[in-house]
Protein backbone atom coordinates (compact mmCIF):
# COMPACT_ATOMS: atom_id res chain seq x y z
CA UNK A 1 0.00 0.00 0.00
CA UNK A 2 1.39 3.39 -0.95
CA UNK A 3 1.96 6.15 1.54
CA UNK A 4 1.67 9.64 0.09
CA UNK A 5 4.17 12.14 1.37
CA UNK A 6 3.01 15.50 2.72
CA UNK A 7 6.22 17.46 2.83
CA UNK A 8 8.54 15.48 5.07
CA UNK A 9 5.61 13.62 6.60
CA UNK A 10 4.43 10.21 5.43
CA UNK A 11 0.72 9.55 5.60
CA UNK A 12 -0.55 6.03 4.98
CA UNK A 13 -4.35 5.85 4.53
CA UNK A 14 -4.44 2.19 5.62
CA UNK A 15 -3.03 3.08 9.04
CA UNK A 16 -5.45 6.01 9.45
CA UNK A 17 -8.23 3.62 8.40
CA UNK A 18 -7.07 1.03 10.94
CA UNK A 19 -7.39 3.53 13.77
CA UNK A 20 -10.80 4.76 12.60
CA UNK A 21 -11.93 1.12 12.41
CA UNK A 22 -10.67 0.58 15.96
CA UNK A 23 -12.86 3.44 17.26
CA UNK A 24 -15.87 2.35 15.21
CA UNK A 25 -15.58 -1.16 16.67
CA UNK A 26 -15.56 0.45 20.11
CA UNK A 27 -18.63 2.62 19.45
CA UNK A 28 -20.47 -0.36 17.98
CA UNK A 29 -19.75 -2.43 21.09
CA UNK A 30 -20.96 0.18 23.57
CA UNK A 31 -24.50 1.60 23.50
CA UNK A 32 -23.68 3.81 26.51
CA UNK A 33 -20.99 5.59 24.49
CA UNK A 34 -23.44 6.11 21.63
CA UNK A 35 -26.18 7.39 23.93
CA UNK A 36 -23.81 9.81 25.60
CA UNK A 37 -23.02 11.38 22.21
CA UNK A 38 -26.65 12.45 21.78
CA UNK A 39 -27.73 12.93 25.39
CA UNK A 40 -25.96 16.21 26.37
CA UNK A 41 -26.48 18.08 23.09
CA UNK A 42 -30.20 17.20 23.24
CA UNK A 43 -30.51 18.38 26.86
CA UNK A 44 -28.66 21.63 26.04
CA UNK A 45 -30.85 22.29 23.05
CA UNK A 46 -34.11 21.72 24.94
CA UNK A 47 -33.14 23.94 27.91
CA UNK A 48 -31.94 26.86 25.77
CA UNK A 49 -34.67 26.41 23.18
CA UNK A 50 -37.49 26.60 25.72
CA UNK A 51 -35.78 29.54 27.44
CA UNK A 52 -35.67 31.37 24.12
CA UNK A 53 -39.34 30.60 23.50
CA UNK A 54 -40.25 32.03 26.89
CA UNK A 55 -38.19 35.21 26.45
CA UNK A 56 -39.42 35.73 22.89
CA UNK A 57 -43.01 35.71 24.14
CA UNK A 58 -42.15 38.60 26.48
CA UNK A 59 -39.70 40.68 24.48
CA UNK A 60 -39.91 42.23 21.05
CA UNK A 61 -36.13 42.05 20.62
CA UNK A 62 -35.96 38.32 21.20
CA UNK A 63 -39.01 37.76 19.04
CA UNK A 64 -37.02 39.38 16.18
CA UNK A 65 -33.94 37.37 17.08
CA UNK A 66 -35.77 34.10 16.86
CA UNK A 67 -33.40 31.16 16.64
CA UNK A 68 -30.27 32.99 17.72
CA UNK A 69 -29.96 31.13 21.03
CA UNK A 70 -30.72 27.79 19.42
CA UNK A 71 -28.16 28.41 16.68
CA UNK A 72 -25.63 29.45 19.34
CA UNK A 73 -26.28 26.24 21.29
CA UNK A 74 -25.81 24.13 18.18
CA UNK A 75 -22.63 25.99 17.14
CA UNK A 76 -21.17 25.81 20.64
CA UNK A 77 -21.79 22.08 20.63
CA UNK A 78 -19.92 21.74 17.34
CA UNK A 79 -16.97 23.46 19.00
CA UNK A 80 -17.13 21.63 22.32
CA UNK A 81 -18.20 18.16 21.08
CA UNK A 82 -15.71 18.37 18.22
CA UNK A 83 -12.86 18.77 20.70
CA UNK A 84 -14.34 16.19 23.04
CA UNK A 85 -14.72 13.68 20.20
CA UNK A 86 -11.04 14.14 19.41
CA UNK A 87 -9.81 14.01 23.01
CA UNK A 88 -12.05 11.15 24.18
CA UNK A 89 -10.89 8.92 21.31
CA UNK A 90 -7.34 9.65 22.41
CA UNK A 91 -8.23 8.98 26.05
CA UNK A 92 -9.68 5.59 25.07
CA UNK A 93 -6.09 4.51 24.30
CA UNK A 94 -4.92 5.59 27.73
CA UNK A 95 -7.89 4.05 29.54
CA UNK A 96 -7.28 0.73 27.77
CA UNK A 97 -3.46 0.87 28.32
CA UNK A 98 -3.01 0.44 24.57
CA UNK A 99 -0.86 3.50 23.89
CA UNK A 100 2.49 1.65 24.04
CA UNK A 101 1.23 -0.86 21.48
CA UNK A 102 0.41 2.01 19.12
CA UNK A 103 3.62 3.90 19.78
CA UNK A 104 5.78 0.89 18.85
CA UNK A 105 3.71 0.20 15.74
CA UNK A 106 4.43 1.90 12.40
CA UNK A 107 1.59 4.37 13.10
CA UNK A 108 2.93 7.94 12.65
CA UNK A 109 1.78 10.72 15.00
CA UNK A 110 0.27 12.62 12.06
CA UNK A 111 -1.74 9.51 11.09
CA UNK A 112 -2.95 9.16 14.66
CA UNK A 113 -4.04 12.82 14.60
CA UNK A 114 -5.83 12.31 11.26
CA UNK A 115 -7.73 9.32 12.67
CA UNK A 116 -8.73 11.36 15.73
CA UNK A 117 -9.99 14.18 13.48
CA UNK A 118 -12.09 11.74 11.45
CA UNK A 119 -13.49 10.25 14.65
CA UNK A 120 -14.29 13.72 15.92
CA UNK A 121 -16.42 14.25 12.78
CA UNK A 122 -18.11 10.85 13.08
CA UNK A 123 -18.91 11.32 16.77
CA UNK A 124 -20.16 14.82 16.07
CA UNK A 125 -22.43 13.56 13.29
CA UNK A 126 -23.86 10.84 15.54
CA UNK A 127 -24.58 13.36 18.30
CA UNK A 128 -25.52 16.49 16.41
CA UNK A 129 -27.52 15.42 13.36
CA UNK A 130 -30.43 14.04 15.44
CA UNK A 131 -30.31 17.17 17.62
CA UNK A 132 -30.65 19.46 14.58
CA UNK A 133 -33.84 17.57 13.71
CA UNK A 134 -35.01 18.02 17.31
CA UNK A 135 -34.51 21.78 16.83
CA UNK A 136 -36.78 21.67 13.78
CA UNK A 137 -39.38 19.53 15.53
CA UNK A 138 -39.55 21.47 18.81
CA UNK A 139 -38.67 25.04 17.86
CA UNK A 140 -39.12 25.23 14.10
CA UNK A 141 -35.46 26.23 13.76
CA UNK A 142 -33.77 24.74 10.69
CA UNK A 143 -30.02 25.18 11.01
CA UNK A 144 -29.59 23.83 7.46
CA UNK A 145 -31.49 26.91 6.29
CA UNK A 146 -28.32 28.90 7.00
CA UNK A 147 -27.03 27.46 3.73
CA UNK A 148 -23.40 27.91 2.72
CA UNK A 149 -22.73 30.07 5.76
CA UNK A 150 -23.34 26.99 7.91
CA UNK A 151 -20.48 25.24 6.11
CA UNK A 152 -18.18 28.19 6.81
CA UNK A 153 -19.25 28.26 10.48
CA UNK A 154 -18.73 24.51 10.78
CA UNK A 155 -15.28 24.45 9.16
CA UNK A 156 -14.01 27.23 11.39
CA UNK A 157 -15.44 25.75 14.60
CA UNK A 158 -14.18 22.24 13.89
CA UNK A 159 -10.68 23.55 13.09
CA UNK A 160 -10.57 25.33 16.46
CA UNK A 161 -11.86 22.22 18.22
CA UNK A 162 -9.13 20.09 16.61
CA UNK A 163 -6.40 22.60 17.47
CA UNK A 164 -7.46 22.43 21.14
CA UNK A 165 -7.87 18.63 20.97
CA UNK A 166 -4.36 18.18 19.56
CA UNK A 167 -2.79 20.26 22.33
CA UNK A 168 -4.79 18.44 25.03
CA UNK A 169 -3.65 15.06 23.62
CA UNK A 170 -0.03 16.23 23.66
CA UNK A 171 -0.35 17.32 27.29
CA UNK A 172 -1.89 13.92 28.15
CA UNK A 173 1.01 12.13 26.45
CA UNK A 174 3.52 14.21 28.33
CA UNK A 175 1.83 14.34 31.75
CA UNK A 176 -0.34 11.23 31.85
CA UNK A 177 -3.86 10.82 33.18
CA UNK A 178 -3.31 13.53 35.80
CA UNK A 179 -4.13 15.97 32.99
CA UNK A 180 -7.36 14.18 32.01
CA UNK A 181 -9.60 16.94 33.36
CA UNK A 182 -8.17 19.32 30.72
CA UNK A 183 -9.95 17.28 28.07
CA UNK A 184 -13.31 18.02 29.68
CA UNK A 185 -12.77 21.60 30.80
CA UNK A 186 -10.29 23.46 28.61
CA UNK A 187 -12.85 24.49 26.01
CA UNK A 188 -14.96 26.23 28.66
CA UNK A 189 -12.21 28.86 28.98
CA UNK A 190 -13.26 29.97 25.50
CA UNK A 191 -16.97 30.13 26.28
CA UNK A 192 -17.13 33.62 27.87
CA UNK A 193 -14.43 35.01 25.56
CA UNK A 194 -15.81 33.67 22.29
CA UNK A 195 -19.11 35.49 22.97
CA UNK A 196 -21.32 32.50 22.25
CA UNK A 197 -24.57 34.05 23.53
CA UNK A 198 -23.85 37.83 23.40
CA UNK A 199 -22.11 40.26 21.06
CA UNK A 200 -18.43 41.14 21.48
CA UNK A 201 -19.39 44.76 22.14
CA UNK A 202 -20.69 43.69 25.58
CA UNK A 203 -17.14 42.92 26.73
CA UNK A 204 -14.80 45.58 28.20
CA UNK A 205 -12.40 46.98 25.59
CA UNK A 206 -9.31 45.10 26.82
CA UNK A 207 -11.22 41.78 26.80
CA UNK A 208 -12.45 42.44 23.28
CA UNK A 209 -8.82 42.30 22.09
CA UNK A 210 -8.54 38.77 23.49
CA UNK A 211 -11.95 37.81 22.11
CA UNK A 212 -10.95 38.84 18.58
CA UNK A 213 -7.85 36.65 18.83
CA UNK A 214 -10.15 33.61 19.03
CA UNK A 215 -11.60 32.20 15.78
CA UNK A 216 -14.96 31.14 17.32
CA UNK A 217 -15.70 34.80 18.17
CA UNK A 218 -15.86 35.55 14.45
CA UNK A 219 -18.20 32.61 13.88
CA UNK A 220 -20.64 33.62 16.62
CA UNK A 221 -20.62 37.26 15.48
CA UNK A 222 -21.19 36.11 11.90
CA UNK A 223 -24.00 33.85 13.00
CA UNK A 224 -25.78 36.68 14.83
CA UNK A 225 -25.33 38.98 11.82
CA UNK A 226 -26.89 36.35 9.57
CA UNK A 227 -29.85 35.47 11.80
CA UNK A 228 -30.68 38.93 13.15
CA UNK A 229 -29.66 41.22 10.29
CA UNK A 230 -29.69 38.75 7.38
CA UNK A 231 -26.16 39.78 6.44
CA UNK A 232 -23.49 37.26 5.39
CA UNK A 233 -20.16 38.39 6.87
CA UNK A 234 -17.67 36.56 4.63
CA UNK A 235 -14.90 38.84 5.92
CA UNK A 236 -15.35 37.42 9.43
CA UNK A 237 -15.17 33.84 8.11
CA UNK A 238 -11.94 34.54 6.22
CA UNK A 239 -10.35 36.15 9.27
CA UNK A 240 -11.42 33.20 11.41
CA UNK A 241 -9.94 30.80 8.87
CA UNK A 242 -6.57 32.58 8.87
CA UNK A 243 -6.47 32.47 12.68
CA UNK A 244 -7.49 28.81 12.62
CA UNK A 245 -4.73 27.91 10.19
CA UNK A 246 -2.24 29.50 12.60
CA UNK A 247 -3.67 27.81 15.72
CA UNK A 248 -3.97 24.42 14.02
CA UNK A 249 -0.34 24.52 12.85
CA UNK A 250 0.75 25.68 16.31
CA UNK A 251 -1.26 22.80 17.84
CA UNK A 252 0.48 20.21 15.64
CA UNK A 253 3.91 21.65 16.47
CA UNK A 254 3.04 21.63 20.20
CA UNK A 255 1.83 18.01 19.96
CA UNK A 256 5.06 16.88 18.28
CA UNK A 257 7.17 18.73 20.85
CA UNK A 258 5.18 17.24 23.73
CA UNK A 259 5.56 13.77 22.19
CA UNK A 260 9.31 14.31 21.93
CA UNK A 261 9.39 15.46 25.53
CA UNK A 262 7.35 12.36 26.54
CA UNK A 263 10.02 10.17 24.93
CA UNK A 264 12.70 12.07 26.81
CA UNK A 265 11.11 11.77 30.28
CA UNK A 266 9.81 8.24 29.71
CA UNK A 267 6.14 9.08 30.16
CA UNK A 268 5.09 6.87 27.21
CA UNK A 269 5.96 3.93 29.45
CA UNK A 270 3.71 5.09 32.27
CA UNK A 271 0.40 6.40 31.07
CA UNK A 272 -1.20 6.38 34.50
CA UNK A 273 -1.25 9.34 36.88
Amino acid at each position, binding site marked *: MSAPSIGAVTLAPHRVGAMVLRYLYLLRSSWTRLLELIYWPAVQLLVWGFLQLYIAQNSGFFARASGVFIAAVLMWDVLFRGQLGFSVSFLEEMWSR*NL*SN*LMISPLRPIEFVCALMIMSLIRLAIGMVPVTFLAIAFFGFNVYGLGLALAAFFVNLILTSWAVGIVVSGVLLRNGMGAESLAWTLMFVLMPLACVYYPVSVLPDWLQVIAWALPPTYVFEGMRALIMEHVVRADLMVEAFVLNAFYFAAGVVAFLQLLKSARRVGSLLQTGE
Partner: protein
Amino acid sequence: MPQAAEPAIAVDQLVKVYKTTRAVDGISFALERGSITGLLGGNGAGKTTTIAMIMGLVMPTSGTVKVLGAEMPRQRYQVLHKMNFESPYVDMPHRLTVRQNLTVFGLLYAVEDLKGRIASLARELDLVEFIDRPTGKLSAGQKTRVALAKALINSPQVLLLDEPTASLDPDTADWVRAHLERFRKERGVTVLLASHNMAEVERLCERVIIMKRGRIEDDDTPQRLLIRYGRETLEEVFLDVARGRGEASEAAQ
Protein backbone atom coordinates in the same frame (compact mmCIF):
# COMPACT_ATOMS: atom_id res chain seq x y z
CA MET B 1 22.05 -0.13 3.83
CA PRO B 2 22.60 -2.48 6.79
CA GLN B 3 25.33 -5.05 6.30
CA ALA B 4 24.33 -8.72 6.34
CA ALA B 5 26.59 -9.34 9.34
CA GLU B 6 25.25 -6.32 11.22
CA PRO B 7 23.71 -7.32 14.54
CA ALA B 8 19.93 -7.30 14.92
CA ILE B 9 20.28 -5.07 17.98
CA ALA B 10 23.38 -3.02 18.77
CA VAL B 11 23.49 -1.06 22.02
CA ASP B 12 26.52 1.16 22.58
CA GLN B 13 27.37 3.06 25.77
CA LEU B 14 23.68 3.56 26.44
CA VAL B 15 22.72 5.88 29.28
CA LYS B 16 19.30 6.99 30.50
CA VAL B 17 18.97 9.49 33.31
CA TYR B 18 15.56 10.38 34.74
CA LYS B 19 16.10 13.63 36.66
CA THR B 20 18.71 12.41 39.16
CA THR B 21 18.31 8.65 38.67
CA ARG B 22 20.62 6.79 36.28
CA ALA B 23 18.20 4.07 35.16
CA VAL B 24 20.65 2.76 32.56
CA ASP B 25 24.32 3.45 33.05
CA GLY B 26 26.54 3.00 30.01
CA ILE B 27 25.60 -0.48 28.80
CA SER B 28 26.79 -2.04 25.53
CA PHE B 29 25.84 -5.29 23.85
CA ALA B 30 25.05 -6.64 20.41
CA LEU B 31 22.58 -9.39 19.54
CA GLU B 32 23.19 -11.57 16.52
CA ARG B 33 20.35 -12.08 14.10
CA GLY B 34 18.31 -15.13 14.98
CA SER B 35 19.60 -15.29 18.56
CA ILE B 36 17.53 -15.45 21.74
CA THR B 37 18.86 -13.54 24.72
CA GLY B 38 17.57 -13.22 28.25
CA LEU B 39 17.77 -9.89 30.05
CA LEU B 40 17.83 -10.57 33.76
CA GLY B 41 17.76 -8.21 36.69
CA GLY B 42 15.88 -7.33 39.83
CA ASN B 43 13.31 -4.57 40.07
CA GLY B 44 14.83 -1.25 39.06
CA ALA B 45 17.78 -2.91 37.29
CA GLY B 46 17.00 -1.02 34.08
CA LYS B 47 15.59 -3.86 31.95
CA THR B 48 12.32 -2.15 31.00
CA THR B 49 14.03 1.17 30.25
CA THR B 50 16.56 -0.67 28.06
CA ILE B 51 13.79 -2.44 26.13
CA ALA B 52 11.87 0.85 25.84
CA MET B 53 14.93 2.54 24.32
CA ILE B 54 15.35 -0.35 21.89
CA MET B 55 11.72 0.13 20.82
CA GLY B 56 12.16 3.89 20.49
CA LEU B 57 9.63 4.64 23.25
CA VAL B 58 12.26 6.35 25.39
CA MET B 59 15.01 8.64 24.12
CA PRO B 60 18.52 7.81 25.42
CA THR B 61 20.36 10.49 27.40
CA SER B 62 23.53 9.41 25.59
CA GLY B 63 24.84 6.44 23.63
CA THR B 64 23.15 4.72 20.72
CA VAL B 65 20.70 1.93 19.98
CA LYS B 66 20.48 0.43 16.52
CA VAL B 67 17.85 -2.07 15.45
CA LEU B 68 18.45 -3.81 12.10
CA GLY B 69 20.83 -0.94 11.31
CA ALA B 70 18.37 1.88 12.11
CA GLU B 71 19.17 4.27 14.93
CA MET B 72 16.41 4.49 17.54
CA PRO B 73 14.34 6.54 18.00
CA ARG B 74 15.48 8.83 15.14
CA GLN B 75 15.09 6.28 12.34
CA ARG B 76 12.43 4.15 14.02
CA TYR B 77 9.97 4.21 11.12
CA GLN B 78 12.49 2.33 8.98
CA VAL B 79 12.21 -0.71 11.24
CA LEU B 80 9.08 -0.57 13.42
CA HIS B 81 7.17 -2.71 10.90
CA LYS B 82 9.83 -5.43 11.36
CA MET B 83 9.62 -5.43 15.16
CA ASN B 84 7.03 -6.23 17.78
CA PHE B 85 6.60 -6.38 21.52
CA GLU B 86 4.64 -8.25 24.14
CA SER B 87 4.20 -7.47 27.79
CA PRO B 88 1.51 -8.33 30.33
CA TYR B 89 1.72 -4.70 31.46
CA VAL B 90 0.40 -3.40 28.14
CA ASP B 91 -3.20 -4.19 27.24
CA MET B 92 -5.30 -4.22 24.14
CA PRO B 93 -8.73 -2.55 24.00
CA HIS B 94 -10.98 -4.66 26.23
CA ARG B 95 -14.26 -4.09 24.43
CA LEU B 96 -12.92 -5.17 21.05
CA THR B 97 -13.05 -8.85 20.22
CA VAL B 98 -9.82 -10.76 19.68
CA ARG B 99 -10.46 -10.78 15.93
CA GLN B 100 -11.13 -7.03 15.87
CA ASN B 101 -7.95 -6.27 17.81
CA LEU B 102 -5.86 -8.47 15.54
CA THR B 103 -7.48 -6.88 12.48
CA VAL B 104 -6.61 -3.36 13.67
CA PHE B 105 -2.99 -4.27 14.42
CA GLY B 106 -2.72 -6.27 11.19
CA LEU B 107 -3.81 -3.17 9.25
CA LEU B 108 -1.37 -0.97 11.17
CA TYR B 109 1.45 -3.34 10.21
CA ALA B 110 0.12 -3.68 6.61
CA VAL B 111 -0.02 -7.47 6.91
CA GLU B 112 -0.81 -9.14 3.59
CA ASP B 113 -3.67 -11.64 3.50
CA LEU B 114 -4.71 -10.47 6.95
CA LYS B 115 -7.69 -12.82 7.27
CA GLY B 116 -5.45 -15.78 6.48
CA ARG B 117 -2.78 -14.57 8.92
CA ILE B 118 -5.34 -14.18 11.73
CA ALA B 119 -6.77 -17.63 10.99
CA SER B 120 -3.31 -19.16 11.05
CA LEU B 121 -2.36 -17.43 14.34
CA ALA B 122 -5.69 -18.46 15.84
CA ARG B 123 -4.91 -22.10 15.05
CA GLU B 124 -1.27 -21.93 16.18
CA LEU B 125 -2.04 -20.13 19.45
CA ASP B 126 -5.31 -21.92 20.15
CA LEU B 127 -7.49 -18.79 19.93
CA VAL B 128 -10.26 -20.24 17.74
CA GLU B 129 -12.63 -20.92 20.63
CA PHE B 130 -12.71 -17.31 21.83
CA ILE B 131 -11.66 -15.26 18.79
CA ASP B 132 -15.02 -13.46 18.64
CA ARG B 133 -15.21 -12.73 22.35
CA PRO B 134 -14.30 -9.33 23.86
CA THR B 135 -10.62 -9.33 24.86
CA GLY B 136 -11.43 -7.98 28.31
CA LYS B 137 -13.53 -11.05 29.15
CA LEU B 138 -10.69 -13.54 28.67
CA SER B 139 -8.64 -15.27 31.38
CA ALA B 140 -5.03 -14.17 32.02
CA GLY B 141 -3.72 -17.14 30.02
CA GLN B 142 -6.00 -16.43 27.08
CA LYS B 143 -5.04 -12.73 27.14
CA THR B 144 -1.36 -13.66 27.04
CA ARG B 145 -1.96 -15.83 23.98
CA VAL B 146 -3.83 -12.95 22.31
CA ALA B 147 -0.99 -10.55 23.18
CA LEU B 148 1.44 -13.04 21.67
CA ALA B 149 -0.70 -13.25 18.53
CA LYS B 150 -0.56 -9.44 18.28
CA ALA B 151 3.22 -9.57 18.74
CA LEU B 152 3.54 -12.13 15.94
CA ILE B 153 0.95 -10.64 13.56
CA ASN B 154 3.61 -8.98 11.38
CA SER B 155 6.02 -11.97 11.50
CA PRO B 156 8.63 -9.73 13.16
CA GLN B 157 12.36 -10.06 12.64
CA VAL B 158 12.96 -8.67 16.13
CA LEU B 159 10.71 -9.63 19.02
CA LEU B 160 10.94 -7.96 22.43
CA LEU B 161 9.27 -9.72 25.32
CA ASP B 162 8.86 -8.23 28.78
CA GLU B 163 8.06 -11.02 31.26
CA PRO B 164 5.82 -12.84 28.77
CA THR B 165 4.74 -15.52 31.25
CA ALA B 166 4.19 -13.35 34.34
CA SER B 167 0.99 -14.24 36.21
CA LEU B 168 0.38 -17.40 34.16
CA ASP B 169 -0.18 -20.83 35.64
CA PRO B 170 2.71 -23.28 35.08
CA ASP B 171 0.87 -25.20 32.36
CA THR B 172 0.03 -22.10 30.28
CA ALA B 173 3.49 -20.64 30.87
CA ASP B 174 5.05 -23.85 29.61
CA TRP B 175 2.79 -23.78 26.56
CA VAL B 176 3.83 -20.17 25.79
CA ARG B 177 7.53 -21.05 26.15
CA ALA B 178 7.15 -24.03 23.83
CA HIS B 179 5.48 -21.82 21.25
CA LEU B 180 8.18 -19.16 21.48
CA GLU B 181 10.86 -21.83 21.12
CA ARG B 182 9.16 -23.26 18.02
CA PHE B 183 8.52 -19.84 16.49
CA ARG B 184 12.13 -18.77 16.87
CA LYS B 185 13.45 -22.00 15.36
CA GLU B 186 11.08 -21.86 12.41
CA ARG B 187 11.38 -18.13 11.61
CA GLY B 188 14.90 -17.30 12.79
CA VAL B 189 13.61 -14.26 14.65
CA THR B 190 15.85 -12.35 17.08
CA VAL B 191 14.35 -12.39 20.57
CA LEU B 192 15.23 -10.29 23.60
CA LEU B 193 13.43 -11.58 26.64
CA ALA B 194 13.28 -9.71 29.95
CA SER B 195 12.21 -12.04 32.70
CA HIS B 196 12.30 -12.79 36.40
CA ASN B 197 11.73 -16.46 35.68
CA MET B 198 15.14 -18.14 35.72
CA ALA B 199 13.86 -21.52 34.56
CA GLU B 200 12.31 -19.81 31.56
CA VAL B 201 15.54 -18.04 30.67
CA GLU B 202 17.54 -21.24 31.18
CA ARG B 203 15.22 -23.15 28.87
CA LEU B 204 14.83 -20.56 26.10
CA CYS B 205 17.95 -18.43 26.00
CA GLU B 206 21.34 -19.12 24.50
CA ARG B 207 22.77 -16.00 26.12
CA VAL B 208 22.02 -14.17 29.34
CA ILE B 209 22.68 -10.53 30.17
CA ILE B 210 22.39 -9.78 33.87
CA MET B 211 21.72 -6.17 34.85
CA LYS B 212 21.99 -4.51 38.21
CA ARG B 213 21.47 -0.81 39.01
CA GLY B 214 21.51 0.12 35.35
CA ARG B 215 24.74 -1.72 34.51
CA ILE B 216 25.58 -5.04 32.95
CA GLU B 217 26.95 -7.24 35.70
CA ASP B 218 27.50 -10.30 33.55
CA ASP B 219 26.93 -11.53 30.02
CA ASP B 220 27.45 -15.13 28.97
CA THR B 221 25.75 -18.38 27.97
CA PRO B 222 23.67 -20.03 30.70
CA GLN B 223 26.02 -23.03 30.74
CA ARG B 224 29.16 -20.92 31.17
CA LEU B 225 27.49 -18.81 33.88
CA LEU B 226 26.68 -21.96 35.85
CA ILE B 227 30.26 -23.18 35.55
CA ARG B 228 31.85 -19.83 36.33
CA TYR B 229 29.70 -19.24 39.41
CA GLY B 230 29.89 -22.88 40.46
CA ARG B 231 26.12 -23.11 40.68
CA GLU B 232 23.48 -25.59 39.53
CA THR B 233 20.75 -23.18 38.50
CA LEU B 234 20.55 -19.70 36.99
CA GLU B 235 18.47 -18.64 39.97
CA GLU B 236 21.48 -19.22 42.21
CA VAL B 237 23.69 -17.30 39.78
CA PHE B 238 21.16 -14.46 39.75
CA LEU B 239 21.11 -14.35 43.56
CA ASP B 240 24.90 -14.29 43.65
CA VAL B 241 24.93 -11.31 41.28
CA ALA B 242 22.04 -9.55 43.02
CA ARG B 243 23.70 -9.93 46.43
CA GLY B 244 27.16 -9.02 45.20
CA ARG B 245 28.61 -12.51 45.62
CA GLY B 246 29.61 -12.80 41.97
CA GLU B 247 33.14 -11.59 42.41
CA ALA B 248 33.68 -13.74 45.50
CA SER B 249 32.46 -16.89 43.71
CA GLU B 250 34.65 -16.25 40.71
CA ALA B 251 37.66 -15.49 42.92
CA ALA B 252 37.12 -18.80 44.75
CA GLN B 253 37.15 -20.59 41.40
